[in-house]
């Protein structure tokens, strides 16, 4: 059971940084004045936010390999291309981490976008006026300040992801809910096991809040008014 809690933790710990990095790229594209960049990012964000994570998991885990197999065994031979056919399957851990991070990236992108836009444009101008490049202005001056603003909502999402990670049990990743269910059914103690699972989720979440408060304290700027980013609508 503790091992399973570890798996949940691992899923989250692997997915959240990926989500933030991917989200940052999306946010940067979204803010861009070039349509070629902002459009795909906006579309991605809306599609991901507009469909349930569970459906996304099913699509990636079941539908995509089926499509691939169809391509291999049916479509390609018909146009004269023959590949060595071995049925495609995904590693369920990889799909779990991929889906969680791809899904949360859309939300993190919106948080980061709001965070970046909350920073006074004068900051960028001041950096440029010193001779910094756009890239330096972004990474040395704007991003660190935006980071401070987005920590609370991102920690919020981290905890949400910790709980959402139970969804990947449907593709057989042995995380907390999956194990609780399994052990419970084997020993006919489902109710007890689910209670233990709930307690473990709660413990992990509280750990997340503690981490958030620590980060906020570390990053706070003396003399600065409190800045808040409204959490984009929930999951």
């Amino acid at each position, binding site marked *: 059971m503790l091992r399973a809690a570890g798996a949940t933790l691992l899923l989250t710990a692997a997915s959240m940084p990926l989500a933030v990095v991917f989200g940052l790229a999306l946010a940067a594209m979204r803010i861009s004045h070039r349509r070629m960049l902002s459009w795909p990012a906006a579309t991605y964000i809306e599609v991901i936010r507009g469909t349930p994570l569970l459906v996304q998991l099913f699509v990636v885990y079941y539908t995509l390999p089926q499509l691939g197999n169809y391509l291999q065994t049916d479509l390609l031979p018909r146009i004269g291309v023959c590949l060595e056919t071995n049925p495609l399957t995904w590693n369920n851990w990889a799909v779990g981490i991929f889906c969680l991070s791809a899904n949360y990236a859309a939300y993190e992108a919106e948080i980061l976008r709001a965070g970046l836009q909350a920073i*006074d444009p*004068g*900051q960028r*101008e*001041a*950096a*440029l*006026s*010193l*001779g*910094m*490049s*756009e890239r*330096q202005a972004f990474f*040395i*001056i704007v991003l*660190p*300040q935006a980071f*401070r603003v987005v920590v609370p909502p991102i920690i919020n999402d981290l905890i949400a992801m910790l709980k959402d990670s139970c969804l990947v049990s449907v593709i057989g990743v042995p995380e907390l809910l999956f194990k609780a269910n399994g052990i419970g059914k084997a020993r006919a103690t489902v109710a007890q096991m689910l209670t233990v699972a709930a307690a473990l989720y709660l413990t992990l979440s509280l750990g997340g809040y503690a981490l958030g408060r620590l980060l906020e304290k570390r990053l706070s*700027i*003396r*003399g*600065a008014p409190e800045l808040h980013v409204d959490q984009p609508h929930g999951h």
Partner: protein
Amino acid sequence: MEQTPFLNRRETILEVRGLKKSFGPKRVLNGVNLKVGKGEVLVILGPNGCGKSTLLRCLNLLEKYQEGEVALRGEVISRGRPEGSGLSRQDRAVECAMRRHFGMVFQRFNLFPHLRVIDNVMSGPINVLRMPRDEAFEVARKALCKVGLWEKHPCDPLTLSGGQQQRVGIARALAMNPDIMLFDECTSSLDPMMTKEVFMVLRELASEGMTMLVVTHDLDFAREIGDRVVFIENGVVSAEGTPEHIFEAKPTPGVRALIEGSLYETRLSRA
């Protein structure tokens, strides 16, 4: 237009020729011509929205302009480009290098709040000039001493008063050792006491021979600090001369309106 003797005595350091700038369909600067002598303090006056700040921002390309050119010591450092034309990687590098000639001081200070005072001042030398830390520290120390704020170097910028923040802003620009300092309404968000503080720093810089372009609304400030005043109206330089000339002769209706409007304001505040 009166040619001031001032320029004849000095070598021209900066020349602006036919600078035109539009924001979309709105033309803001309509062919500005300007010469600045080395070590001169040039005050730029004009009614709100006449493009004073825009002119300053065009000089270091925080705003792109469409026509005209800017020359530093006779060498063209930037040219107008048609709107919407893209910049190559090389253009951007040239732009960055060219901004180093100018030090800019902003109305709202724009200090980096997440960096301590000393790190604000060191940020240019370290990141742009690639100076080693200890060398940059020395440069920053000198710059902060010049504005009289060395004792504040470990503080966070937002804990300082407005006047102190603006002086740190000046030090940050000075640390890059610019040829010309640009002051964009640098006292507009300060009370009279703080304005005085900043004024003293500017006067000291002037006495050391720094070339400065000062955009301001504060006529007393303009009179006291300026070697020469240019008046911008409807996107062009409509009058220029010594402060005495501008304030006594009031050569155009716009100048008169500004000066008398300001007197009216003063009278109101005394009443």
